[in-house]
């Protein structure tokens, strides 16, 4: 089985020769708790030559993982338990954001950046920023589109903030929950090499939403082509982060189920982007028809300005 695993990781990363160099790192025991295989997997994708800091970080990650295992043993009703989910420094958060915006082909976001230290700071505040960015940008965009029209009276449209908040937070928490449940269920049927904890999935989804923040700001530009180009571009970037994270987790499964899972992930992500664009941003260059004016002899006259 070691050779099979080595083959899989050679596919997954270019530095296959390094893997062959330390065969002891590929042993996996099915009986061990989930934490241990992840520890070993964390070491594997790092090529030693060009990314020395990643390798050094890996050593730290071993220590931090042991420590993290000790830290997370605080009972869930104490405040210290929740502090373990905010155990990140500024540079770590910035690194994770950078990793979500510039996905490196072949590098798994969870393995490379999260390394068994999932945080809730990033997902929560990225979602909060995204909510307000979409609401404010949508409002600004509508203002510029309808500027100059005599029938237009500016309203701040504050209702949309609550709608945006509900949508985005529901997406960022319920979809990871569903995905985690699904992966756990498939894990019980098919032995997958890679498995993620719920918080790691929440983390990946949260950080993958970051690219939509500058996209939402750029959506103020009232050109349809520009908006659709932006949607496609950001969808490709964040979708690729998600796909590269979850493909190793489902590839051992039935081919159709694996493809369906990854396809659903991308589809939901696309739905979120397109839905936000459609709901919060009025379509540009569309004139609202003037309301029907009933003529005095009973026939109705509809005027439409082009």
């Amino acid at each position, binding site marked *: 089985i070691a050779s099979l695993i080595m083959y899989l990781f050679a596919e997954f990363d270019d530095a296959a020769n390094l893997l062959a160099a330390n065969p002891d790192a590929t042993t996996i025991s099915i009986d061990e708790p989930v934490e241990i295989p992840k520890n070993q997997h964390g070491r594997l994708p790092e090529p030693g030559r060009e990314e020395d800091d990643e390798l050094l970080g890996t050593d730290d990650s071993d220590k931090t993982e042991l420590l993290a295992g000790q830290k997370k043993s605080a009972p869930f009703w104490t405040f210290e338990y929740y502090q373990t989910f*905010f155990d990140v*420094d*500024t540079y770590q*958060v910035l690194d994770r954001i950078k990793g979500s915006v510039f996905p490196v082909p072949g590098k798994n976001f969870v393995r490379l950046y999260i390394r068994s230290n999932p945080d809730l*700071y990033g997902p929560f*505040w990225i979602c909060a920023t995204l909510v307000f960015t979409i609401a404010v940008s949508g409002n600004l965009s509508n203002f510029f589109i309808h500027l100059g029209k005599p029938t237009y*009276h*500016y309203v701040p*449209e504050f209702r949309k903030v609550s709608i945006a908040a509900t949508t985005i937070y529901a997406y960022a928490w319920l979809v990871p929950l569903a995905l985690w449940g699904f992966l756990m269920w498939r894990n019980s049927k098919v032995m997958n090499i890679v498995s993620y904890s719920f918080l790691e999935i929440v983390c990946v989804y949260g950080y993958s939403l970051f690219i939509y923040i500058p996209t939402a700001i750029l959506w103020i530009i009232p050109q349809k082509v520009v908006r659709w180009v932006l949607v496609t571009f950001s969808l490709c970037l964040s979708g690729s982060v998600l796909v590269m994270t979850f493909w190793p987790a489902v590839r051992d499964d039935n081919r159709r189920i694996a493809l369906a899972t990854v396809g659903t992930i991308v589809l939901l992500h696309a739905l979120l982007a397109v839905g936000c664009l459609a709901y919060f941003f009025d379509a540009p260059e569309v004139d609202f028809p003037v309301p029907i004016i009933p003529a005095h002899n009973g026939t109705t006259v509809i005027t439409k300005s082009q």
Partner: protein
Amino acid sequence: FSGLADVSITEDIPVEGEITVPVGSHSPDEDFSTLDEPVRDTIMRDLKAVGKKFVHVMYPKKSSALLRDWDLWGPLVLCVSLALMLQGGSADSKDDGGPQFAEVFVIIWFGAVVITLNSKLLGGTISFFQSLCVLGYCVLPLTVAMLVCRLVLLAGSGTVSFVIRLIVVVAMFGWSTLASTAFLADSQPPNRKALVVYPIFLFYFVISWMILTFTPQ
């Protein structure tokens, strides 16, 4: 010890002595007993404390008075007045578009609670109510901005008034953020300061946005 067996205390021996504690003879006790003072003194003391904190917010120095004696009267007054001023004025228009009173209230208080929780979870050493107090008091510049905006809107609502309002709101937003950062940043671990300051920035940005987009009917 046979003689001791005969010793017994009978109930008819009276126990005498003084068990009352003398009151009023220690001078520090008199300072804590505020029950006898006139009501005016009590109210004036609290008002002076609130006023002193307002002055501290407008001229932020790194003083610990704002942190040590926290109170939530100031934030409540500021929040209520800001929410009242953000009402559109025409009560019968349903689609006002602006935030309702309850929405402003919830955003300010819930936002302050979330930011406080965030800073505590990141390892901050400030207490919960002290942080709420600082965040609430630092809404004062934005309340002043709201007042100025309403006065400017009385004069007119064209481009010039918009530019004036924009400048005022941006200046007050910067003042609020800097004031609250000056008070709160010291209690954070040094490599997480930016993680704590950013939500404060977002909080005041949202309030500034609500003030700037206020349009009376």
